[in-house]
């Protein structure tokens, strides 16, 4: 179809010279104005970078235990030794065990100075399981026993920083897949129910009631027994998150449905339908954007749930468990009075989780504002 009458008499090019930014460009402009969101984006980018180059950035092999270094508190980085500038360094560790309480304590051995070396050769690793190397971002020069623990060590004397860096890999990937799935299902079913209404809605609502009533624990127990025990725990966990998504959609679906019922007769929705948009497009381009804020908020809220959910099933043998390293698994190590009282640094993964979800939240805020036409 050509509309000769309209285009033909436009003699001069009317568009090229003028400022008609694409919607996405507009959004990016608006997003950039939200400084915190921008920083959050950088931070998340940084996290993914760290996760990608974990082998190189982590000072040690995250699985390597050390008999003499259990529960080492985070070490302090010094610059001056006996009033003299040496650059960043740590002192050696002196280990004592209280014969009464069996508590380990570590003191700085002021005679041993270990300057921090960058691009240091240490534990060997295979980068992404492919390339073998022993280059690490930093480390200290010293005997086989001398190590640097910026975040301290766990009960088996493993470097917490290295574990945290490796743990980000799973947490920031597999953990988020479940969020994605449950949102897809929730939004789809909610949209269908809210858009079509009537019997379809009734059926979906009954399904939601049904799904919500299913007791999950026996389901997981059954699954734990049914799945071949040799399967990789990460894969099993992935499967679980998908199943979790299959039953975790109900809340979102109901919210979407409720919202759609209020807007499905609004003029702009009708206008979209009249302009020939297919139902799917009406939903995705017109109806859902009107709940952008809600969806973004719900996603940011679901992320911590998934990260923590990693481990909530572990006592059934289904969640992630050691030796898999994820933030949830690391945090589980800290979930007892013993750690809280004696080794509070084991709570560091909690801080990482909180920072990450805050970053996701502010990123969401920025995206919300960018998508909000009422903003400048």
């Amino acid at each position: 179809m050509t509309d000769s009458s309209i285009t033909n008499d436009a003699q001069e090019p009317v568009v090229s010279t003028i400022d008609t930014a694409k919607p996405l460009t507009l959004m990016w402009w608006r997003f950039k104005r939200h400084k915190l969101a921008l920083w959050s984006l950088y931070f998340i980018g940084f996290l993914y970078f760290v996760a990608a180059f974990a082998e190189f950035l982590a000072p040690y092999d995250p699985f390597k235990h050390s008999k003499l270094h259990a529960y080492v508190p985070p070490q302090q980085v010094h610059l001056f030794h006996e009033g003299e500038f040496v650059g960043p360094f740590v002192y050696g560790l002196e280990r004592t065990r209280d014969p009464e309480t069996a508590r380990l304590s570590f003191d700085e051995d002021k005679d041993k100075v270990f300057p921090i070396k960058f691009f240091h050769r240490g534990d060997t690793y295979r980068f992404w399981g492919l390339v073998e190397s022993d280059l690490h971002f930093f480390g200290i020069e010293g005997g086989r026993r001398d190590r640097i623990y910026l975040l301290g060590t766990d009960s088996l004397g493993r470097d917490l920083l290295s574990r945290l860096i490796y743990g980000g890999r799973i947490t920031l990937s597999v953990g988020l897949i479940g969020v994605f799935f449950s949102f897809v299902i929730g939004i789809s079913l909610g949209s269908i129910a809210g858009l079509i209404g009537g019997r379809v809605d009734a059926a979906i609502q009954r399904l939601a009631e049904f799904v919500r009533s299913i007791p999950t624990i026996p389901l997981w127990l059954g699954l734990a027994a049914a799945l071949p025990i040799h399967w990789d725990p990460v894969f099993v966990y992935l499967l679980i998150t998908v199943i979790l998504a299959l039953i975790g959609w109900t809340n979102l679906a109901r919210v979407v449905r409720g919202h759609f019922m209020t807007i499905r007769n609004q003029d702009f929705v009708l206008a979209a339908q009249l302009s020939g948009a297919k139902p799917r497009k009406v939903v995705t381009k017109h109806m859902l954007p009107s709940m952008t804020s809600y969806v973004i908020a719900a996603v940011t809220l679901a992320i911590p749930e998934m990260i923590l959910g990693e481990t909530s099933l572990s006592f059934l043998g289904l969640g992630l468990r050691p030796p898999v390293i994820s933030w949830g698994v690391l945090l589980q190590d800290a979930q007892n009075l013993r750690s809280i009282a004696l080794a509070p640094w084991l709570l560091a993964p909690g801080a990482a989780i909180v920072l990450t979800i805050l970053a996701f939240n502010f990123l969401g805020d920025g995206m919300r504002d960018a998508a909000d036409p009422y903003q400048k």
Partner: protein
Amino acid sequence: MLWFIVKRILWSIPTMVLISIATFIIIQLPPGDYVTAYIAELEETGESITAVEAAELRASFGLDRPMIVQYWDWISNIVFYGDFGLSLDWKLPVSDLLWDRIALTLMISTLSLVLTWIIAIPIGVYSATRQYSVFDYVFTVLGFLGRGIPDFLLALVLMWLGFAYFNFHVGGLFSPEMADAPLSMAKFWDLLAHLWVPVVVLATGGAAGLLRVMRANMLEELGKPYVETAYAQGMGEREVVWRYPVRVALNPFFSTVGWALPALISGDVITAVVLNLPTTGPLLLRALLNQDMYMAGGFILILSIFTIIGTLLSDILLTLTDPRIRHA
């Protein structure tokens, strides 16, 4: 409206039948049965029974019968006599066990739920109307702190801090010396002194969610022209906000609020477990893990009835609060 409710109740009958069957099957999905759990427990204590004895036990509990017979036995007793059966684990009628704990559960969960709402809705509204103010950030950070730390850990940390630095007596609902004391002001204070941890833990997790959702929805509504109209009518900001956009923004809340009903009855399991609260949640968890099928089945059935009632309540609320849904 009345017909709507009647219709929904009729609808719920097949749903219930399906749920009861599915529940019964799913409860038995895990390998083994109550006797296996019992053997495991004996093993842990250094005891053992022989395979023959185990078989006899199964027979005496009726676990050796076909599933369909067991189901019929169970459901017909519930439907015809209101009898939920005996808990295999406690050897007591299921209903007795539940009733015993339900009052306290309702109290704690209602308290924390209402507190969650009282905290989260106003703060959500505030955060939206004062977007990017200092307090908006403060509440955001606090909220996500509550959400990013597992309830379990948060409770432990709070309790440890209470114990180690403030010398609070923590855990449970009463101090041991008060537990059996008659009702008195002192006992009430004792309860309050214990209640803050569970309530804080339960409220922070839930409140953060509601807060962010409220804020998001409010932001969506605040730009709408009808808000201007309300101002033009001469209303003050607070009135405008609370009368108009809040009502629309509550839609997601109303959509799912009915499902708080079953949650009220089961309470928050994990928190109850760590805080040692005598609520129903841990009972269910235990029943499921021990495959105490009548206990678990009965409880889940009750919960699903409340889920169905909750959906209905939510739908009624939605229609009441939004005429566009009512007339759709």
